[in-house]
C-alpha cells in the first residue's frame, strides 16, 4: 500500500489556483477542498503528518479524475498521477468501493473479459498488419460491441486478436496504480507494434505506461490514414453533428483537433458549449457517484438540447454510455455514437 506521494510531483504545485475555474467539482460546490489545488493542499497535509490519510477519502472519491486542471496549470502539475496515488493510498481494504471490487473481478482474467463480450459479438479474429492491433476493450465490448466491428470493417489492415487482457486503466484510476501499470505492460507484450484503441481513457493510460509511440486513439490514427471523407447527407442536407471530448484523451494526450477534423469533413459540425468539460461519466465515477455524476451531466444536456443535433460523437465508451442515457432521459432525439460509426456511414 502506498504511504507517500511522489515528492517531486507534489512540490510542483505553486498554489496559484489557476485550476479552480477548470474543475467541475469546484464549479459545483465552490469549496476549496473540492478543487485540484485544495486536494493537493490536503495531500501535502497528509504527507507532512498534519492530516490522517482517511481524510482524503471523500475528496479522492468526489474528484472526477477528468484532468481538466492539467492543461490550464502553468506549473505543469501532473494532477492525474497525484490523484491515482491518492486513490492508491486511500481506496484500500474496506475503503475500496464494492462496485470497484466487482469491476476489478470482471476484468481480472482474459476468460472473464471474453465472457463480457459473449452476448454480442465483437470484431472477428483476423491477421492483417502484425504491428497494428485493435484493442477490443473490456466494458466497450460488453456495452458497444459494434464499435470494434465497425473499425475492423473500415480498416482492413488492422489485426484483431481475441486473446487480450484489460489495459489496467480501470485499476490505475481506482486505487491500484501499480497493478494497472503492470496490466498495460502485459498488454503491450501481447499486442505488438501500435495498439489502436477506440477509448480515450485506455489510450491515455497505455501511453503513460508503455509510451506514446505504442498507442493510437482511433481519430488520431484515422486522420493520418485518410484525409478525404465525403459528407453524410440526409434529405439534401448534411447531418448536424456535435462532439464531446474524452477528458483523458484531451487533457492527458493533447488529442482534440483530430476528431473535429474528421467531423468537419463528414457533417455540419457544431462545437457544443464546453465540449472539453467532463460529461460526468469519468470511468467508474458514474457508478460510484451517481448523484454527482448526474449533476455534472445535467449542464451538458442543457447545453446540447437546443442545438438540434442528429448525432453526438464520442471517442470513449464511458462518455457514450453516459450521454446516451442522459440525452434519452431528457427526451432528445440526438443519437450518441462512437466517431468510427460516423466514419463508416460516410464511407457508405
Amino acid at each position, binding site marked *: 500500500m502506498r504511504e507517500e506521494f511522489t515528492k517531486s510531483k507534489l*512540490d510542483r504545485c505553486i*498554489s*496559484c*489556483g489557476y485550476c479552480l475555474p477548470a474543475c467541475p467539482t469546484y464549479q459545483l460546490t465552490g469549496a476549496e477542498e473540492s478543487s485540484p489545488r485544495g486536494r493537493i493542499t490536503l495531500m501535502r497535509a497528509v504527507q507532512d503528518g*498534519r492530516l490522517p490519510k482517511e*481524510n482524503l477519502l471523500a*475528496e479522492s472519491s*468526489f474528484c472526477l479524475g477528468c484532468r481538466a486542471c492539467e492543461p490550464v496549470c502553468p506549473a*505543469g502539475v501532473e494532477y492525474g498521477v497525484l490523484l491515482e496515488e491518492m486513490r492508491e493510498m486511500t481506496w484500500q481494504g474496506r475503503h475500496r468501493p464494492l462496485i470497484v471490487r466487482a469491476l476489478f473481478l470482471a476484468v481480472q482474467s482474459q476468460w472473464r473479459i471474453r465472457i463480457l463480450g459473449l452476448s454480442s459479438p465483437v470484431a472477428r479474429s483476423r491477421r492483417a498488419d502484425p504491428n497494428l492491433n485493435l484493442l477490443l476493450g473490456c466494458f466497450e465490448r460488453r456495452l458497444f460491441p459494434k464499435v470494434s466491428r465497425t473499425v475492423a470493417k473500415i480498416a482492413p489492415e488492422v489485426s484483431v486478436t481475441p486473446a487480450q487482457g484489460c489495459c489496467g486503466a480501470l485499476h490505475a484510476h481506482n486505487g491500484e496504480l501499480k497493478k494497472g501499470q503492470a496490466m498495460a505492460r502485459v498488454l503491450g507484450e501481447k499486442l505488438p507494434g501500435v495498439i489502436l484503441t477506440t477509448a480515450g481513457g485506455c489510450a491515455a493510460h497505455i501511453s503513460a505506461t508503455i509510451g506514446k509511440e505504442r498507442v493510437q486513439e482511433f481519430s488520431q490514427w484515422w486522420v493520418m490514414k485518410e484525409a478525404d471523407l465525403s459528407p453524410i447527407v440526409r434529405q439534401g442536407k448534411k447531418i448536424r453533428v456535435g462532439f464531446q471530448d474524452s477528458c483523458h484523451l484531451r487533457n492527458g494526450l493533447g488529442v482534440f483537433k483530430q476528431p473535429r477534423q474528421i467531423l468537419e469533413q463528414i457533417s455540419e459540425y457544431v462545437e457544443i458549449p464546453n465540449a472539453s468539460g467532463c460529461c460526468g461519466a469519468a470511468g467508474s465515477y458514474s457508478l460510484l457517484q451517481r448523484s454527482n455524476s448526474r449533476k455534472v451531466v445535467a449542464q451538458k444536456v442543457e447545453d446540447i438540447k437546443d442545438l438540434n443535433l442528429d448525432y453526438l460523437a464520442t471517442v470513449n465508451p464511458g462518455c457514450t454510455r453516459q450521454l446516451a442515457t442522459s440525452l434519452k432521459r431528457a427526451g432528445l432525439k440526438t443519437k450518441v455514437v462512437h466517431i468510427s460509426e460516423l466514419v463508416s456511414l460516410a464511407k457508405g
Partner: protein
Amino acid sequence: MSSSQSSPLVGQLVSILGQEAVRADLTSLEAYSHDATPLFQGLPEVIVSPRDTQEVAEVVRFAGKTQTPIIARGAGSNLCAATVPLHGGIVMSMVNMNSILEISKSEMLAVVQPGVTNLDLDTQVGKEGLMFVPDPGSRSVSTVGGNVATSAGGLRGLKYGTTKNYILGLEVVLGSGEVIRTGGRLVKDVAGYDLTRLLVGSEGTLGIITEITAALVARPHASKYGVAYFESLGSACAAVERIISQGILPSTLEFLDNTCLVAVEDFAKLGLDTQAGALLLFGDHGDSEVIEPVVEKMAALCNEVEGCRTVTLAQNVAAAEALLYARRCSLPALARLGTLSILEDIAVPRNRMAITTERIELIAQKYGLRVGTFGHAGDGNLHPTIVLDKDDLPQVRKAELAMGEIFALALEMGGTITGEHGVGSAKLPYLEARLGREQMALQRAIKSVFDPHGILNPGRLGS
C-alpha cells in the same frame, strides 16, 4: 464535507446560515489554511459561505459579540498571505455571492457581487463592447471582491491605472455589522471623505465588501505587439524611458531578465534569444490606425538605444499571443527551477529601475541565491523572484534576509515594498519602514473606527 457541530461557534453559525453554508471538518479547514503565498499556514475554526449581504452582516455581528476573527476570502489567489487564518476564526468564502447584478452600457458601469471572477465580468461586459480594466495575472480565477480588497494591478496599469481607478461605489459590512454604501454610480462626487478609495486595498481589515460598482471602458478593437532584446536590463530600461518621454503611454511594456528568459525558453520553447540580457515586450491596443504607428515608433525607439540586439514586430495574433505567453509564464517557468518560489513586488520610480535591477543582482550574488526578475517596466513595478529548495532551511533563511534587503533597496530608491500584491502578513513587518510611525498609528486609529471589535482580518493592516 459535513460540519461537526461540536463547538458552540459552529453551532451558532449553523443556526444563522444553515448547515449547507457552514463547514468545520478537518479536511475543509486544512484546505482553507493556505492561500497562494508559500510559507504561511494557519487553520481556521470554521468556513462559512454566505449568500447575501444580510447573512454577511449577521455573521459579522455574531463574530463581534464573541470576538472571533473573520477573514473574507475570494479565490485565495493573493500572494501576500492576506487570507491565511493565522489567528484562527471564521473564513468567510465569498465565492457563492457571484452574480453580475447589472451592466449599464450608457453609464459604462457594472454592479456585481464580490465573488464573480475578474474574467467572467470582463467576458460579460465584453459582449456589450466594454472592458473591465484590472487584469491581474490571476484574472481567470481571482474574484472582483479580492481585486478590490487588494487593489489589484495587472499588465495594463501604465496606460489605464489599476483597480483603485475603476471603483465607483461599494456596499460594505463594517466590523460593527452595520451596512454602508459608499460612492455610487457617479463620475463626480465629492460629498465627504472618499471612503471608497480607502476601502479599496484595505485587505478585509475595514469591512467586508458585499457589492461593487465598477467603472468600465470601451473595449479596444485591435492590438499589436513587438519584442526587443537588449544586452542588459539597463539598456532595456533606457528604451522604456525613451518611449515614455516621447509621450507614448502604451498598454504593455513588460520585461524579463536573462534568468527569466532562459527559464521561459526552457519551458515553453518559443525561440527566444537566450543570449540577451533582457527582453522587452511592448504593445498597445485601441483602433488599428492609431496603434500601428505607435507600436512601430516604439520599435524604432528601441532600435536607437545602445545595447539593443534585435527588434521584431509580431506579424499576427498567434505571434503576439506567444509573446504575451512568454511574459505570463515567467513565474511558473521560474518556479520549475526549485521547490519554493518567493515572488516579490516592489515598485520604484521609472528612472531608478535600471539601478534597482542591478542592485538586486548584487543582493542575489551576496546570498548565493537564484533570482529572476520580471515585471511591468512601464510603471516601475518589479517582481524579483527567488527560487530555492524549500527543505534547505539555511537557504530559506538567506532568502528572507535577501528580501529584507530588496525592500530596503526599494525604499532607498524612493519606491515601495508592494506595487500590486498587497501587504497581508507577508509584508507587514516591513510596512512601518515604508509608512513611518505616525502613519502606522493613523492606520490603526482608522481601523478601530471601522472595526471596533478588532475582528476583521486581525494581525494585518491597521493591527
